């Protein structure tokens, strides 16, 4: 440790490591920084001023334009995104928890078979499901409604997988037994004992499913034609496609992108520890 050549080596290593990490951090943050700068600029400054430097501060005007464009459709998209991603992930987490808990704690025939079917589901590319789902839904008239996006989104095999491991780790059998001996039914036991013990892991499951729905672009694109049902991603995609004909839309695409990602980024940073538990157990598989 006191060897001078080791000390020099570690000083060089330290500097190299820090420089490399700073470069990478710049790479990861640059597009977000650019977006913040661009969202504060008037449309006319976008091309005429340097992209990484602030110019005339026009953020509030841009926000006003964004939320009043096309009769306030952006606000509608934001509400839709919340319905699909927040409500969908909440329902999805609940049914994953029920199923994962049953798979972890109830001994029954065919349990391992059901679990391997679910594990197979983790590997199924969801984009491969979207087109056949569209055909099935168009026969039942669900296409182009909220349900077309919402219903398939609540299914998360990965969520069940996580719920099963988390239950096995966090809910001791003895506690369930004593609840049962006290005369509590299985559902009472689940809601009053198990769910409370599982709650940190439920946050993790919720986050993973939220991101999956929030990121899923293919499904809403296949299912929805009515603009008023779009999530933000699909709406911004449509606007972005029109910027060649209507260049003034560019500023709204930029401001709209920023407005949609900032709250999610903030929540992510606040809930960081829940990611790590989830990713660790995913990795331990």
């Amino acid at each position, binding site marked *: 440790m006191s060897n001078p050549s080791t000390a020099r080596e570690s000083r060089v*290593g*330290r500097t190299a*490591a*820090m420089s*490399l990490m700073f470069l*990478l*951090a710049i*790479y*990861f*943050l*640059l*597009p*977000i920084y650019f*977006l913040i700068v661009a969202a504060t600029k008037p449309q006319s400054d976008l091309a005429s001023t*340097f*992209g990484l430097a602030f110019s005339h501060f026009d953020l509030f005007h841009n926000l006003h334009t964004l939320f009043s464009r096309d009769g306030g459709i952006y606000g509608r998209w934001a509400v839709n995104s919340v319905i699909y991603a927040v409500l969908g992930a909440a329902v999805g987490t609940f049914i994953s928890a029920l*199923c994962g808990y*049953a*798979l972890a704690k*109830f001994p*029954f025939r065919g349990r*391992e078979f059901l679990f391997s079917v*679910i594990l197979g*589901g983790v590997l*199924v*590319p969801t*984009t*491969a*499901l979207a*087109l*056949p*789902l569209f055909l099935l839904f168009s026969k039942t008239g669900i296409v182009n409604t909220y349900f077309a996006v919402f*219903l398939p989104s609540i*299914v998360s*095999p990965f969520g069940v997988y996580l719920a099963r491991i988390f239950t096995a780790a966090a809910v001791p059998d003895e506690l369930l*037994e004593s609840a049962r001996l006290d005369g509590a039914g*299985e*559902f009472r036991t689940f809601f009053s004992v198990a769910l409370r013990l599982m709650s940190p892991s439920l946050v993790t499951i919720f986050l993973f499913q939220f991101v999956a729905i929030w*990121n899923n*672009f*293919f499904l809403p694109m296949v299912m929805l034609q009515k603009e008023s049902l779009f999530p933000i*991603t*699909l709406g*911004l*995609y449509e606007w*972005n496609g029109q910027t*060649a004909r209507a260049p003034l839309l560019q500023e709204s695409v*930029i401001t709209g*992108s920023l407005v*949609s*990602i900032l709250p999610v*980024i903030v929540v*992510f*940073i606040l809930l960081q520890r829940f990611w*790590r538990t989830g*990713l*660790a157990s*995913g*990795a331990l*598989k």
Partner: protein
Amino acid sequence: MTDTASRATRVVAASGRRRRHLGGGPRAGTIVAFLTPFFLPFVLFYLVPIGYAIWQSFRVVRRTGGQYGTSYTTFGGFHQYVQVFHNTEFWSSIERIGLFGVVQVPVMLFVALIMALLLDSPLLRLRSFFRIAAFMPYAVPGVIAAIMWSFLYSPQLSPVVEVLKDVGLTPNFLGPGAVLWSTANVSTWLWTGYNMLILFSALQSIPQELYEAARLDGASNWAIAWRIKVPIIAPSIILTTVFSIIGTLQLYAEPAVLRQISSNISSTYTPNMLAYAVASGNNYQQAAAISVVIAVVTFVLSFGFMRLTTRRAGL
């Protein structure tokens, strides 16, 4: 099977008379009630569409009496699959995605691994800042990431292009040769931090004592990283690789957005874009066959990769 049975008897034995009265474990009705809320939508929105796609991929559209007669579908054997394998657009989309995957996945995972190792080493300060910076893109949907980067690629708006021009370079991020790598960059930006965090979590779960012996023997941090840490987290590296392969084969949103500003991305650029384009032309049977092929290729590649690496690692 025997495991389940023995556990069942154990539970019965443990809980004595009351349990025996109920017939071992919760009643079947209760178990069904717990499982149904997930399994019903799982069957309806996962298994049925898979079955439907497979069934459809074996159908063909025929017409009664010439081109303007009424159409009906009938069993067509492997007709749709033959069509897929004779489709040059299909092969060029596969070739493109193959090239993309062979370069992008290793580059991304290598960067993620280096970052994870550095975050796990004593060399760094500001760890949580770096971790958050790298993970932040995961909060950004692919569509929005591609929109952001398309501004940074745009010859008119990009500060990056402007800076590069000042030093005498004339990059064209949207040119015919470059646009594939511009797409790859968006994926790399999006997923490096996520993969880094999986690898980092795996590194954090290694007991520190393992390093102490090596350190006493005078092993450098570098040697500890490559000889001890990397082999131990090999399963996580395999997992991230498999997930990345699945992701690459599904590529849709990023190239679809870049297509809005680059004429060098066709409507059939990736297998998924091809499937969508074919379905938009109302050829659902053909689109189903393409979807099935994509899913099968995904399965084969991810399982194949897992088998190959676990066998080589002697696990």
